[in-house]
């Protein structure tokens, strides 16, 4: 499956929260996450990966924050 950038809403409120999401995604770089960007003010996370969305959702949900899948980035 080709890798694609997927857009998620993650209810992050501060650097600590975005820092936590960053660490969680860093750990996933070994298995399938190519790169990611975090837009704290808009509570958005963009993940470039070949993994299925369900896996990415499960990864983001480890932060115990509210997570919603928005869609592939245009």
């Amino acid at each position: 499956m080709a890798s694609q950038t997927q857009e998620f809403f993650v209810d992050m409120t501060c650097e600590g929260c975005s820092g936590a999401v960053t660490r969680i995604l860093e750990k996933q770089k070994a298995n399938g996450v190519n790169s990611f960007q975090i837009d704290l003010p808009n509570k958005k996370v963009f993940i470039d990966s070949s993994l299925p969305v369900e896996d990415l959702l499960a990864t983001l949900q480890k932060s115990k924050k509210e997570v919603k899948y928005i869609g592939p980035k245009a």
Partner: protein
Amino acid sequence: SDRKELDIAIGGMTCASCVNSIEGGMKKVEGIYNASVTLTTGRGRFVFNPKLITPEKIAEEVEDMGFDASVIG
């Protein structure tokens, strides 16, 4: 007794919502009875059942949430 207390140094928290998500998340972990985290000291106090979960596993759960965790004792 099957209730023990554990202190863990937690790194990477900067606001109350980090504290809330750690406390809320950790209380759902099997074997953990209570979790209270103090932002200013960066410490988490966990009351747990040693038969169900180990200190290392508790620290691992915190790290799984994206924070640094080291067992103080």
